[in-house]
């Protein structure tokens, strides 16, 4: 048996690193700062290769080539629109259904819907496409959509809503418009929105001798109910794992804010916020009605009947009705004693990407208008857990009939009057995760609320500075 040595790797070690770094530096030096495309054109000038056409092969044009079919002066006979969306499961099927209804409602426009992953994936995909000046769809449904607007890739939706073929914006709740605002402009159309609501297990409530017809009104109620409900393997209260949303709700109710008006400073360490995180921590460590850092399991605990109250998005309602083997109750967001409820909205919106062809933009708006009409809003909100957009929704006869059949939906709908939009700013991803970390630190007793929130503020403030540099 011969033993041979793997030779020469000694010399190789340095050489490999040198090769990589030299090539990278050379590439950077030649191509500008790691910029393969020398164009300094703003990313907004993305031209979808799909122009008005009668054939439905949207992506046949070689993609590197800028669309040769831009801006025909005459109105096309037929327009095909690409539509990206990011809702899976039942909600996704409802979106497909709405698109089908639109396609059947007229013959001039055909919309081709494609699922592009969840909010994170579709965002990655959109950013990639904008950065690489690559084909974008004409319309997309995204979470955090106003941020796309702020990069200049899409047309402010007010160009359409306030135009000749527009709509009466005052019919839709103001909070929904605020939610689609960035840097003072309304970029996109509210579509699928939700708010936190308080789900509770009526069977457990009855067993604990609590009133089953209504959920807790205030956070004090949550605590006293929770103490009744907590026993053995059973917990009183818990939230889903996007804890930042629920703590933000409490902070806003207590009169605090997430960020200052100019969006230059995070306000997480305000006394109002600290007080609420203190309350949160007390629920875990003092009253012991909520298990520490167990939010990922909260949903299954609730369905398994070992959790009394569950704070989560209203969009989950239909699936809880479907999956819960007990009698479900839904209550509004609990209020801070003596103060108003506040329900921060979340969810996705529809954006229309820039296009040099006015007929395509027109068609895209026609589609968006259909998707957010009163009829579609009714359809979406009665087939998923998303909320209707219109102030008059509770008075619609169809909605009233639906509420007769599904009384649980009443609480989220009535809660719409408290809807509130947390400002959408580029550091939102960072600020959410910073707040989640603060919650976790307090729950596990690793930090007191003030210190945890000071730290969160520090993280966000630093990111705000970085994000501001992008615009320079």
């Amino acid at each position: 048996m011969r033993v041979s040595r793997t030779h020469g790797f000694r010399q190789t070690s340095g050489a490999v690193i040198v090769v990589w770094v030299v090539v990278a530096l050379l590439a950077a030096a030649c191509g500008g700062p790691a910029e393969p495309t020398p164009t300094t054109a703003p990313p907004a000038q993305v031209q979808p290769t799909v122009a008005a056409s009668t054939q439905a092969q949207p992506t046949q044009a070689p993609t590197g080539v800028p669309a040769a079919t831009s801006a025909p002066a005459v109105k096309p006979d037929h327009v095909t629109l690409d539509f990206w969306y990011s809702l899976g499961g039942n909600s996704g099927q409802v979106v497909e259904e709405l698109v089908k209804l639109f396609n059947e409602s007229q013959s001039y426009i055909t919309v081709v819907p494609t699922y592009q992953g969840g909010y994170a994936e579709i965002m990655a995909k959109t950013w990639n496409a904008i950065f690489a000046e690559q084909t974008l769809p004409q319309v997309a449904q995204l979470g955090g959509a106003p941020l796309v607007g702020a990069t200049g890739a899409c047309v402010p939706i007010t160009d359409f809503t306030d135009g000749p073929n527009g709509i009466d914006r005052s019919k839709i709740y103001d909070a929904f418009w605020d939610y689609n605002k960035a840097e003072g402009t309304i970029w996109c159309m509210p579509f699928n929105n939700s708010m936190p609501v308080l789900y509770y297990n009526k069977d457990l409530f009855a067993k604990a001798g609590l009133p089953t017809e209504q959920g807790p009104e205030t956070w004090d109620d949550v605590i006293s109910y929770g103490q009744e409900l907590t026993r053995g393997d059973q917990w009183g209260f818990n939230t889903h794992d996007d804890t930042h949303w629920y703590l933000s709700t409490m902070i806003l109710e207590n009169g605090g804010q997430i960020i200052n008006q100019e969006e230059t400073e995070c306000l997480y360490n305000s006394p109002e916020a600290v007080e609420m995180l203190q309350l949160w921590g007390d629920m875990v460590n003092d009253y012991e009605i909520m298990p520490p850092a167990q939010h990922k399991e909260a949903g299954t605990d609730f369905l398994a009947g070992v959790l009394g109250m569950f704070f989560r998005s209203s969009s989950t309602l239909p699936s809880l009705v479907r999956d819960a083997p007990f009698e479900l109750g839904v209550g509004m967001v609990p209020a801070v004693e003596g103060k108003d409820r506040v329900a921060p909205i979340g969810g996705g919106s529809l954006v229309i990407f820039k296009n040099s062809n006015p007929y395509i933009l027109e068609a895209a708006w026609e589609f968006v208008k259909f998707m957010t009409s009163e009829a579609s809003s009714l359809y979406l909100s009665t087939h998923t857990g998303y909320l209707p957009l219109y102030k008059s929704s509770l008075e619609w006869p169809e909605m009233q009939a639906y509420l007769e059949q599904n009384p649980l939906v009443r609480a989220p709908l009535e809660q719409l009057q408290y809807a509130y939009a947390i400002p959408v700013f580029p550091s939102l991803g960072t600020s959410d995760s910073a707040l989640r970390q603060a919650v976790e630190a307090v729950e596990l007793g690793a930090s007191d609320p003030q210190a945890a929130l000071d730290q969160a503020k520090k993280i966000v403030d630093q990111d705000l500075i970085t994000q501001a540099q992008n615009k320079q």
Partner: protein
Amino acid sequence: MTTKPTTGSVPLWQSQRVRKGLVAVLWYALLSVTALAVMLPFIWMISTSLKGPKEVFTYPPSWIPSAWRWQNYIDAWEGAKFGRYFLNSVFVALAVTLGQVITCSMAAYAFARMNFRGKNLVFALYLSTTMISTQVTLVPSYLVMKWLGWMDSYKALIVPFLTSPFAIFMMRQAFMTMPRELEEAARLDGCGRVRFLVQILLPLSKPVIASQALFAFMGNWNSYLWPLIITTRQDLRTLQIGLRYFVSQEGGTQWGLFMAAAVLVSLPVIVIYFVVQKSFVEGIATTGLKGT
């Protein structure tokens, strides 16, 4: 090799046959227990796939569904347009597998058996491409696709994966253990390098080639983010994207359906694995070639 040599005459319970039997019983027992433990999560997945929505999460958890809902499988198949996705996945994974076996065995042969300038450097450069996280190479890879005009095409799903440094490395390890005399003899008989690789080296390394082919197939079968980012058309989508469609971030996932879909998606790989696993143990030892 688990049997000890026997010396001289021994009592019955120590006889070769009894010992062999005992060892076999022990072997079965040990493997059964560990296999069951390993399969536990998988069994739970199958059990969930047959449950209705109201009994997925119960307290305490139940292993056996109260009523077996085979309907979940039908709904899963229809709900995700699996038919087309399935064909795409099979086509892409097979193309990648074939390509990897060809390009990797060629490269591995060069690394294992030839002396050339820059060998170590090139090998290290190859291997080092696996050390950078795919999360950051996504954007530059996307740019390459754009420059080539390959967005939204099978090419984008296949070509970038036609070689694998890990597979090259593994095959190199295998080829290096082949006796050098083998090649010298073959070459003297006028056998060219390509023929030597195809007719002698590859068949002798069957276990390694089979295992690397399986990994290539699976790696591609399971890829999700790249196909999602690089294709926009429905008709180019693969199974994993169909599977994720069942996961609803805000709306609450239908776990019964999802698990049924997950079982369906992994079924082909299990079948392929079961078929090829025999060749993992058909190597040099059984082809009768003696070690040096």
